[in-house]
């Protein structure tokens, strides 16, 4: 096929378009941060996961070490069953504990993992039992009101039942 004078302009146009796509993918999205590391899956049981969502971060010492894969309800123990996918390059002792934390006052919830002291490390398929539930604001307010009502002179009719 013979070349035409349009070739160079069309080529430039296509290159500009592709460069824009690459710019969006690299600079404004997280293509470079996508980890293709191998993962291992660990289960955890929580009494209450609060507002935790799948894909939430799992952090240790503030560093992202994995993601929440799925959250399901276990109707045997009536607990939430959270599957975590941790990056294989990070190893944690078997008795590590999990906490559901919030970034900032109103931010996203994430799971904090605190290393224990066991000799053995967590392996795929393990279940972490040592967990601390999410702080539910309504329960906190309820406890606060109960303790207030208990110490102050209770007005009739609002006495909390013990």
């Amino acid at each position, binding site marked *: *096929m013979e070349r*035409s004078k*349009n*070739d160079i*302009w*069309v080529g*430039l*146009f*296509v290159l*500009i*378009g*592709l*460069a*824009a*796509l690459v*710019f*969006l*993918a690299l*600079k*404004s*999205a*997280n*293509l470079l*941060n*996508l980890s293709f590391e191998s993962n291992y899956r660990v289960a955890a049981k929580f009494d209450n996961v609060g507002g935790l969502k799948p894909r939430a971060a799992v952090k240790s010492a503030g560093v992202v070490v994995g993601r929440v894969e799925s959250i399901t309800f276990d109707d045997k123990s009536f607990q939430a069953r959270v599957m975590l996918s941790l990056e294989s390059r990070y190893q944690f002792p078997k008795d590590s504990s999990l906490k559901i934390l919030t970034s900032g006052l109103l931010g996203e919830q994430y799971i904090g993992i605190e290393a224990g002291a066991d000799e053995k490390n967590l392996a795929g398929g393990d279940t972490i039992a040592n967990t601390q539930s999410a702080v539910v604001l309504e329960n906190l307010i309820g406890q606060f009101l109960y303790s207030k009502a208990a110490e102050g002179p209770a007005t009739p009719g609002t006495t909390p039942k013990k």
Partner: protein
Amino acid sequence: MRWWHPADVGQATRSLMDQWGYGARLLTRMVLLFGPTMRRFGLVRDQIHFLGNYSLAIITVSGLFVGFVLGLQGYYTLQRYGSSEALGLLVALSLVRELGPVITALLYAGRAGASLTAEIGLMKTGEQMAAMEMMAVDPISRVLAPRFWAGVIVMPLLAAVFSAVGVLGGYVVGVLLIGVDAGAFWSQMQGGVDVFKDVGNGVVKSFVFGVAVTFVALLQGYEAQPTPEGVSSATTRTVVISSLSVLGLDFILTVMMFSI
């Protein structure tokens, strides 16, 4: 007007079905002509040059100004909640997910779709289509299909240019003018924008819009009454129908992509 008469309802239904069927057949033919069209890439190249290169200026300028405005308005809202660092995220997400594909498609419908309709309508008025058929040249594969595929190729590229320039515009206003921290601007953006969920779905959207707008423009041109009034009303219909279908499709695609 006897619109309640069963015969009128029947006739209206039949002519509607006839039009839709005709449109669907034309679209199917153009899609199936992908291979033969790409083998004669010279035709497509000239159309990419006509539809893409000439639209680049309006797309770039509009993207820049939309980015500026997003930066200013976004900052005004975000600083009330003390989270002006999230400006980059706001600008990038609104551009990549919605504004980039939609505004590009609307501009493209006005800039390129209308000219496609006018060109093909005038070819029909001058009986060039009939002349081609007389020479055993299929006007659909010679005239319509290269324009269709050129439009489908061009739209995602234009939308990507629009979004990228818009992000830069938001950066200029947010960081250089207002003084949001540059590191927070980019890192919040990179933390919140997903390559496949946001950027990828934006590309899919602009691809669908490219198919819709180009197809509407070609169909209206090919179906235009071969008179000056016919061509002018076909051009108007192209802009109206393709803009409305872009907005409608955008809602449907957004529901399908981003709602769980």
